[in-house]
């Protein structure tokens, strides 16, 4: 009876990271760092620029360290820990200035806030810096709503939009309701609901190329639901989802499109017809 199979089990040390808890927000800072994210950098740079303009409009000085690149998520979610850690370490160095870090994408913000802890689980020294970064990382919309406490005047024409919320915003960052709240403050914007709103658009980084058939079915359903809402356009605060959804809409030869929330918001409150 003593030689049971489970007795052979060695003691392991890995433990689960903490789940996101409701956070306390600081007063509006004078300066912030914008972490643009690689997808915005290459494919939606105007959204990053609009984010900068919105922040400046709040009287905040924006820093954009030219040494920034990617948060490391693609390698991390593909199982390449060492490669993810190299990239993450370089970004930790870039963002080491103590300023709040504002990120126009839920999944990259989630990487800083949640997954860097796992990436550096075996480096206690680095973990202190990771905790520091996690504490001062904000998703863009979260930052406007809870740190800047914006009350914006909507200068745009009346419009109907659908909002797509990224899974990382919803399940890692607990920021999925922020865009709703912020949009509700805009007098001329009506947000239309769509079916299966909480369901993933099918991107998942490399999932979309490793499992193209399943991912394709998911994005098709998502784009159909968004169009069926009757909205004029879709807005989202996540570059990855936007790349996936717009790429699929284009392939389907639809005219309906998605736009980054930063660009939509800048258009509404600046009165400029987009950048």
């Amino acid at each position, binding site marked *: 009876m003593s030689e*049971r199979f*489970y*007795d052979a*089990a*060695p*003691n*392991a040390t*890995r433990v689960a990271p903490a789940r996101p808890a409701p956070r306390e927000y600081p007063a509006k800072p004078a300066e912030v760092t914008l972490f*643009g994210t*690689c997808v915005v*950098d*290459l*494919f939606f*740079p*105007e959204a*990053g*620029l609009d984010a*900068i303009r919105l922040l*400046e409009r709040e009287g905040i000085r*924006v*820093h*954009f360290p*030219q040494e*920034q690149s990617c948060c490391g998520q693609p390698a*991390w*979610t*593909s*199982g*390449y820990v*060492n*490669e993810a850690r190299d*990239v993450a370490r*370089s970004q930790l160095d*870039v963002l080491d200035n103590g300023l709040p870090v504002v990120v126009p994408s839920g999944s990259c913000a989630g990487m800083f806030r949640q997954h860097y802890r*796992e990436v550096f689980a075996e480096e206690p020294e680095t973990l202190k810096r990771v905790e520091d970064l996690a504490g001062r990382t904000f998703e863009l919309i979260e930052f406007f709503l809870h740190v800047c406490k914006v009350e914006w005047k909507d200068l745009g024409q009346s419009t109907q939009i659908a909002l797509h919320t990224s*899974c*990382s915003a*919803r*399940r*890692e960052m607990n920021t999925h309701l922020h865009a709703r709240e912020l949009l509700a403050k805009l007098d001329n914007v009506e947000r239309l609901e769509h079916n299966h709103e909480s369901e*993933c658009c099918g*991107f*998942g*980084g490399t*999932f*979309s*190329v490793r*499992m*193209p*058939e*399943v*991912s*394709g079915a*998911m994005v*098709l359903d998502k784009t159909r639901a968004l169009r069926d809402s009757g909205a004029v356009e879709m807005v989202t605060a996540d570059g990855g989802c936007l*790349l996936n959804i717009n*790429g*699929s809409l*284009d*392939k389907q030869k639809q005219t309906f499109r998605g736009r980054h929330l930063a660009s939509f918001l800048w258009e509404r409150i600046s009165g400029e017809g987009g950048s």
Partner: protein
Amino acid sequence: MSQRIPMTELTSSFRGRATEALADSQLRTNFRVAMDSLMQKRADAFPDEQERERLRELGNHIKARALSQLPDALEQLEDKLTENGVHVHWAETTEEANRIVHSIIESKQGSQVVKGKSMVSEEMEMNDYLADRGIECLESDMGEYIVQLDGEKPSHIIMPAIHKNRRQVSQLFHNKLGVEETDDVNELIQIGRRTLRKKFLEADVGVSGVNFAIAETGTLLLVENEGNGRMSTTVPPVHVAVTGIEKVVANLRDVVPLLSLLTRSALGQPITTYVNMISGPRKPDELDGPEEVYLVLLDNGRSGAFADAQMRQTLNCIRCGACMNHCPVYTRVGGHTYGEVYPGPIGKIITPHMVGLDHVPDHPSASSLCGACGEVCPVKIPIPELLQRLRQENVKSPDEPPVVKGSGTKHSRKERALWRIWAALNSRPGLYKGLLWAATRFGKLTPGKLGPWTENHTAPIPARRSLHDLAKAHLNAEQNQGGQS
């Protein structure tokens, strides 16, 4: 009884099976309708979010504590059950478990077995094992009965025949049992019931699973809605229960919250129609119940998961199926696509420990990591995090010590080299900016076809100026303006 389809006859990869499932529009509709309804039922069962979260927290603590004391709890369970007159057997492999069950049936000269729904017996492929030895093992759960009749395997752990609609079941009964076709669900259930009733009375042995094994009292607890579990554990003279070693909990008090989480997460029920608690064979003054009770405790890779504190959380699972009900991948491809006993998110994290990652190399990747499974799991298994961990194990170099059986199957020097290059580009600002420079300048030259990506999307064309460029120009202009004013 028709034989089940051997796995080798199915398209061998997850992707292949997924493609087949996606092409079956009836199947897709069946799953979408069923999953939407189950999601709604679960939501309705937990109207108070705070209460739900407190209960999940409690469920997680109870399971974590039970697992931290697993060896002791199992010894206590064995002692207590033995004291109650139950014969306890241990099996490291499914082969061993089958041999034990078979030898019990053989010693009673049994030839007919009725079985209540049991996922562990599916793991063992007990029906086939016994059939090969001339013993008929009839499934008594309606869903299981339907898939057995059709020569299939279950596609869901709670609702084995969820992939079929009533018309398909009606056709099946018509073809196999020679009854009239009917659209009436009640009539369909009555047809199954009439067939099964007779079998309960004829059976030599009843087999069941176990939802919770209670160490303190030596009690096997089994929940069900149809009464078949009660029949198969009390009517035949011999009852054999099979369970995984992770089902043991300390005491009856621990079961209360877990049971509530299980039934509400699974079908949105406050409690099931039947909650069977079996603590031993029939006593001399009792009118019913089996004369002999056996328990087979199965490992089948669970101790491997147990050995790693992060992976150990996999064993928290109380088999409610909520993760599959909320999984966008499962909803689209159905349970058979997973090609193994446990489908959906839990299947992706538990199956590698049972059969080895080399047998299910696509499992860890078949997820967008959307997190819906982790969000609903009643015992808070961080499924996305464990999937992510299995991806690491999957691409490990074969020289590194394996944590999971068959790890390193997806190791590819070429892919690792590509990620090394990617890491170099993204951790050296000069190289990254070089990349931006090239991409923004030559973006228009992006080929129209970019591998699997362009199956569902047009190729993304890089912008003509990167955010690095735009931000630099904008911030410099702002500074200059600021300096002048």
